[in-house]
Every structure is written in structure tokens, then in C-alpha cells.
């Protein structure tokens, strides 16, 4: 049995290419989900509960 921790899914290619057209000034806001996805994927010791919904990342209908 593989006990290796599950790695976060890779960022979506389309999101990566699209973010490159966003100035640094706005990338933190406009691509917050991508930044979080990259951080989870690349930073090995920064895992979060897998699959949780970022409800508050942009306040939906809460």
C-alpha cells in the first residue's frame, strides 16, 4: 500500500498561461486560486485538507 501523502492537483494549464498576462500588481487578487494551487503543489510542507472548497476565498453565497 502506498502511504505517500497525496499531492495537490497540478494547476490548470489555461490558468497558468492566462495569469502571465496579468500584471504583478493585480495577480494576487485576480489569480488567488492559482497562487494557492501552485503553493500547495510546490511547497511540500504546506498541505491543507484535501478537496476543501475555498468558499471564503471569494465569498459565494454564505
Amino acid at each position, binding site marked *: 500500500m502506498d502511504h505517500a501523502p497525496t499531492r495537490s492537483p497540478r494547476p490548470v494549464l489555461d490558468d497558468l498561461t492566462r*495569469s502571465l498576462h496579468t500584471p504583478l500588481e493585480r495577480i494576487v487578487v485576480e489569480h488567488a486560486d492559482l*497562487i494557492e494551487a501552485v503553493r500547495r503543489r510546490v511547497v511540500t510542507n504546506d498541505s491543507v485538507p484535501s478537496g476543501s472548497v475555498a468558499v471564503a476565498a471569494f465569498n459565494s453565497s454564505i
Partner: protein
Amino acid sequence: MTCRCDPPAVGGSCRRISQFVLKVHSRCDLSCDHCYVYQHADQTWRDRPVRMPPATVRAAARRIAEHAREHGLPVVHVVLHGGEPLLLGAAGLREVLAELRTTITPWARLDLRMQTNGVLLDEELCRLFVEYDVRVGVSFDGDRAANDRHRVFAHGGSSHDQVRRALALLRRPEHRASYAGILCTIDVRNDPDRVYEALVAESPPRVDLLLPHATWDDPPHRPGPEPTPYADWLGRLHRRWVDDGCPVSIRLFEALRPGGGGTEAFGLAPADVLVIEADGSWEQVDSLKTAYHGAADTGFDVFDHSVDEAARHPGVAVRQDGLAGLCATCRACPVVDRCGGGLYAHRWRTGSGFDNPSVYCPDLLRLIHTVDAHPPPTPAAQPTPHGSSAAPGSGWSAPSPVEALLDDLATGHGSASTLALLATTQLSITRALLAACRGRSGPTAAWELLVHLEQAVPEAVQAILEHPFVRPRLVRHLDSSTRPPGADAAVDPLPALAIAAAVRAGVPAALRVPVRAGAITLPTLGSLALPTWGRASR
């Protein structure tokens, strides 16, 4: 950091909550007739204090910090909500924000958000939100006719001009970092094209479209004979959005795409969110207020009960059970992984409770088909590196972008366009890590310099970010486990990157740059040995 509890996946009792909605003010200066707080079944607001007292804010912050510490949460999201949170005023909001930052930040990265109607937003408040790194979402339903169909003052007057003024304030360069987006509740009587144009005209970083709250007891308004008016309305807006090249992120459409990740309203992922009412009560998600009086109650409060205790409430726990928490009809549905049964509140029916499909079920099914039939343009939809794509009706499905890349690389040496795309994505990943570092330390002089240089001399910043040492430095800064023993945990790589970019761009700049191991290393330029200097050089 690891959680002290058992992982939930192996049957432990751990229920980590990372998202908290703080009801800092329980009244509102608008009188929207579609508001679930005041106009729907639940009327508990009548017995709440008008504003959250400082002692309650302090207790809430301590509970959140305690939970973050106990479970090793890397990030905690807190949304200031109401009622209308701006009714607290700048001074009151500053007290709340300071308390949250002071209490929670030692234990987890704090992502602060606010949802507001925008009416009272002014420059002083915008400066406060930038200072405390609060990202503000504004409720706005589109063009004047659409917005004023519901979003009016108690005297019936329009709020359209006030909200547009707020959005214009947030668009200013000095406030833009605090502009999170627009939240639009749709009404099928409005013109979807005019709503779309009004939303895009405000240049929001993101838009989310909400279905009006409804239940099987109180079904949504369906003005004509069409069985799925909400899917038809949203489908028309979706087509317009796709045809325009998706000029703005629209969360509802992105969440419904295969693998879109979902939101609270869609998908099967756990909704790890709790609400703290103005009187300190722990509550379940707010939208439940549309179902029946007291639907969101847990019986717990921040003074006597921890987050863990509130999270074990059956109503909260069932929201984290994924497919197992849905009714039999939904579990057997082929698109259940896409809609996730819809918003929990929309499943309510007296007698069977929440064990039903969404009252919007036919609309959701049709909308998913529409989203699938008209996907946004992606590299897969464009000619592949070989200059071909699968013909419609040929029996072959078009390869995904990643498959197309792998196919091309598998030929032995990838085409120029494939290699360029790989390089592009690598640069994009480094930029995302740079932004993550900014998110960790907040706006700094180094970040501002990089932002300025990217606008003025973009090739200088790109050259720095493409240097092979840069990405490992950013990862090391974000991840304590990759830092060598004894290394200085406080070393921020951004000043060295900014100065290196400034030197390459020929732009005069002064920054305090940390000295590591007696040297300053400037990517693409070299190292400056400073054996006799302290921890920073200017």
C-alpha cells in the same frame, strides 16, 4: 506543522475548519427584498445585538487562533460580513481587523475578506482595507434596472450610483489590491446581456453569479412556460462570456467545468466554513436562513465552545461527507460530481428536510450541458503543435492541453510552440510563488518596486524570475522544511530580486536587503561578499 488529530479520512474525529464568517454588524442600510437575512424564513436577526461587541470579537479571534494552532492550519480565511459590515465605521473596523491580525497571525496566514453592499465605502475605508490587506467583494446586480429591482433603500430609492461609486474607488490603482470582485444575484426578468455588460464594465477581478435563494417549500420564480429559465438565462450569459474570450473570471462557470473545483453551491468537496453571529453564536452557513427559522443554529457559542465542538454539529459535519451526504436521487445522477446536489439550502422541503435534490435541479443539469457544449477557448481548441485537431463527429475526442503537449514531446523533441508553452508555464509558476511570498509578508517596498519595474521594464523582471536560483529561493522562503538547519527563517528573497531587477533596468532604487552567510546574492548579477556586515545592507 501537522494536525494533532487523526486525519478525517481514516475515521478520526478531526474536522478542520479554515473559513470563518464574522457577522460584525447585524443590520443593513439597504432593504433588498431578496435578502435571506431579513426577508426569508429565519428572523433570528431581530434578537441579535446591532454590532458585535469587542469582547465577542476577541473571543472569536482566540477561538480561531486556537483551532489554527491545534490543527496546524497554514491559512485561515475570515470574511467580515453582516448585515452590512461598513456600518461599523472605519474606527470600529480597525479595531476588529487589528484584533484578528494580532491574535491569529502568529499561528496561521490570515486571509481577510469582506462582503459589502458598498454604499458607505469611501477613501478612508479603502486605505484601511489596503493597510490590513482586506479583499472586498461588493454585491451588485448589474445595470440600473437589474440592480434596482431588488437592491434599494428602505424608502425604495436606487442604490446603483452609490455602489458604482464604491466600485470606482476600488478600481483605483492604490486600492486595486483590495478589490476582490462582484457578487451578483441573478433575476431571470433582467436582460442577461445588459447585466453581463454592466458587470464587465466595472473591471472586477472576479464575478460570482448566485441563484436567488429558494426551496421546495418556496420555489424560485419561473415567469414563463420554460422549464429551465435559470439555465437558459445563465446559458445566454455563458455564451456571451465565451464568445468575448472570457474577459473576466466568472466563478460559477469555472466551478461547473469538469474538475472546476466547485464552490459552496456546487461540487462534492467539503465546505469547511462556520459563521460567528454578532452575539458570538456559532452558526452553520448563512444561506440556511432561507429554509426555516433557526435553521443555521448550532446551540454553541465562542465563549463556551471551541471550533472543534461546533464543527462536530451534525449539520456542519454532513456538509463534509461529500457524496454520502446527498439524497439517493443525487447519488445516482451522472453529473453529481459537477453540481454536488446544488446549494444545501436549496434542497429544503418540509417533511424530508435536506434529503432532496436542489429545487434548481433541472436548471443545473441543463446548465452543465450548456457549459460542456460551449467550453472557453483553450490551447486544446486551437491547432495542436502538429497543426491539426480532432474533427467534430470524427469519433475521436480532442486531446486535453496536457495530452497534446505530451504527444508532441513524445516525438523525441518538442516543437518550438510546445517548448515555448512549457517555458511560459514555468515563468507563470515562479510569478505565482512570488505572489505567494507577497501574500505571506504583505505589501512591502520590495514588492512595490517589482510591481513598478514590471510595468516600466518588464524584460528586466522576467530575466530575474527566469534565473534558475530564484524559484528554489521562493520555495525555501515559503516552506520551512526545505530550509537548511540553522538558516535564518526571516530571510525574505524579494528585496534581492527587486534590486537585481532595478540594476538590470537601470532604475535607481534603495532597499534594505538581507545578508545571508555574509553575502548578498543578486540573481543574474552575482554575489557581493559582505563578511563584516550585519544582517542587512542598504
